[in-house]
């Protein structure tokens, strides 16, 4: 197991390197002077010159890349050109809020998606099934920001049930988490339904039924446990999608997370912050994928790591 974990981390290494290269190139390939991007549009010439020397911007790319990675390893992500704050401090402040939102969305997606999928599978080809299927189709087809706006309009502005925007209490979390989680909920419901249908047709479920077990017990103990294995994978991958979906949701609800930070920084051409946030989201996504692989082995003993 430990051996597998280490190997899995090593396999992820090229991806992390690739992400670093892309983030590195973002500033260099954008039309304009990278030194200005890193120092800020209105920075004094000395600061711009300092950036040029520090990142070796007049030297070949591989040297520049070495310098960039070198500073990253020391935890130096640069300073925001807008606020002059250290990028790492910005990330520390905003990232936990995004995690909170994404976790909230995940919980909602699982709590509604799995039961909906199970019920649809148990009542295949009924109205309930059709409703779940149509609902999940609309769920994956709906822009999160549009649903967010409508939810805000109806539940916050008109009914006054939830605060309109911002972060703070649990009530602040409800609408953003629901709108962010909707797409994942739809995908999880779909996955649970098809996985459940497959498992319900298998021999051991029929055996369990044949030996006289009650329906609910067969479903809970025999079918669901196995049906959920692929759902875990999908759910894990969805968590990564939620991190990027948060970019839109956070903008709608003025949620102080890393997605909104990223969008604001792109608009302001604040490249150090853009680089830092992109790097953090991508690396988190890679780590989540590794975690999903490992969890997969825990819950399905048929998978061996060798």
């Amino acid at each position, binding site marked *: 197991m430990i051996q597998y974990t280490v190997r899995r981390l090593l396999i992820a290494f090229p991806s992390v390197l690739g992400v670093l290269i892309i983030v590195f190139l973002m500033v260099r390939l954008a039309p304009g002077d990278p030194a200005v991007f890193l120092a800020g549009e209105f920075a004094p010439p000395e600061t711009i010159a300092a950036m040029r020397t520090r990142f070796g911007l007049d030297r070949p790319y591989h040297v520049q890349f070495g310098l960039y990675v070198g500073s990253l390893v020391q935890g130096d992500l640069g300073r925001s050109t807008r606020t002059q704050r250290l990028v790492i401090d910005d990330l520390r402040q905003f990232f936990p809020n995004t995690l909170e939102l994404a976790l909230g969305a995940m919980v909602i997606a699982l709590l509604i998606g799995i039961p909906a999928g199970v019920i649809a599978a148990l009542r295949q080809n009924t109205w309930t099934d059709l409703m779940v299927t149509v609902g999940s189709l609309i769920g*994956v087809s*709906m822009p999160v920001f549009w649903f967010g706006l409508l939810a*805000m309009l109806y539940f916050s502005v008109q009914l006054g049930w939830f605060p309109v925007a911002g972060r703070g209490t649990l009530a602040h979390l409800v609408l953003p988490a629901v709108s962010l989680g909707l797409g994942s909920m739809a995908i999880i419901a779909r996955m649970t339904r098809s996985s459940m249908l497959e498992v319900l047709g298998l021999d051991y479920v029929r055996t369990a039924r044949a030996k006289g077990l009650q329906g609910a017990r067969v479903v809970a103990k025999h079918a669901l446990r196995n049906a959920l294995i692929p759902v875990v994978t999908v759910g894990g991958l969805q968590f990564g999608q939620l991190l990027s979906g948060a970019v839109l949701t956070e903008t709608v609800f003025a949620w102080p997370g890393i997605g909104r930070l990223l969008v604001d920084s792109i*608009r302001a051409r604040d490249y150090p912050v853009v680089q830092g946030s992109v790097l953090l989201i991508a690396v988190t*996504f890679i780590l989540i994928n590794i975690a999903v692989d490992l969890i997969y082995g825990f819950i399905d003993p048929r998978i061996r790591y060798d």
Partner: protein
Amino acid sequence: MTDGQVPDPVAGETMVVQREDGRRQAPRWLRRLRRSPIAIVGFVIIGFFLLVVAFAPFLAPYSPLRQTLRSRYVPPMVGVSLRGPEGQFGLWVRDVSRSSAGELSVGDTSYPVRFFVRGERWTWFFGLMSSDLRLFGVDGPIRFYLLGTDEQGRDMLSRIIHGAWISLSIGLITVAIGILIGVPIGALSGFFAGTTDLIVQRVIDTMLAFPGILLAIVLVATLGTGLTNVMIAVGIAAIPVYARLVRASVLSVREREYVEAARALGRRSVPTLFKHVIPNVMAPIIVQSSLQMAVAILFAAGLGFLGLGARPPQPEWGLMLSRGRDFLATAPHVATFPGLAIVFVVVGFNLVGDALRDALDPRL
């Protein structure tokens, strides 16, 4: 093989043969598709969408850019009634305007809405079509707004109709970039395996490490904002999806007998790849393309919403929606209708994608 199909020894797929009555029978996947209600609904939606794109200026009552500042934020259907002044049936409209204090006032005189009226002159399809005829319009000196107006007093209905063209082109260009670059990369990677495959797969892994819309955002941040860059960015983001898909299919097709047969006959690798392997991985590509259209439209709308995509005054649905955010409480229709248009079209492409998958790949 009772339904008129025999396996083609070289292509490996079934081919169509003549039935006894001499008529050609449609392939099995097409017959399956015709029977599927999902496919019918999906194709109807997409057909409607394509009609709207083709005849946008004829269907739209006004130009999408024409501002009328005295009628800003007119709610939908205001001044519109189904009865005329003397009780006659039909669509009758009255003038709507906003005073400088923001009060909405409706005029006294009713004018009928008629089919095939002459209005502002329009050109379409890069100047190929030009006319002043419109499907419907008000017979009188006023303007009417079935879906209301936005912050510049522009007709929402006309803007949504014209926005269809933007969504379609984003979808098509994205899919084209994804196919033209992603398919060859995936095919070569899967067919030749070895070092090429290893390197290509690491590049694909890297691209896929940016979840969802993030890769497109990264590319837009690099290339700059604007509609063209959004198309390129969303298109590049589709490349790894196609490459992965095609590689997986090629890996499974590569070892089939007919490919081996082609090799044994001494055919060279690349022609074999194009002649025998790629045609047999077409099914997943077609399915993915329909689903990818849906994703592309959602992504582009998302970027437009974030202010990183289309620029004002382009009638892009995501951008229009974002303009409605600031006046959500007073003019909710500005955010509502473009969103409905997005959902409608995206549902259409998702349905067709699902139906094609069911028809082309009965194992799923």
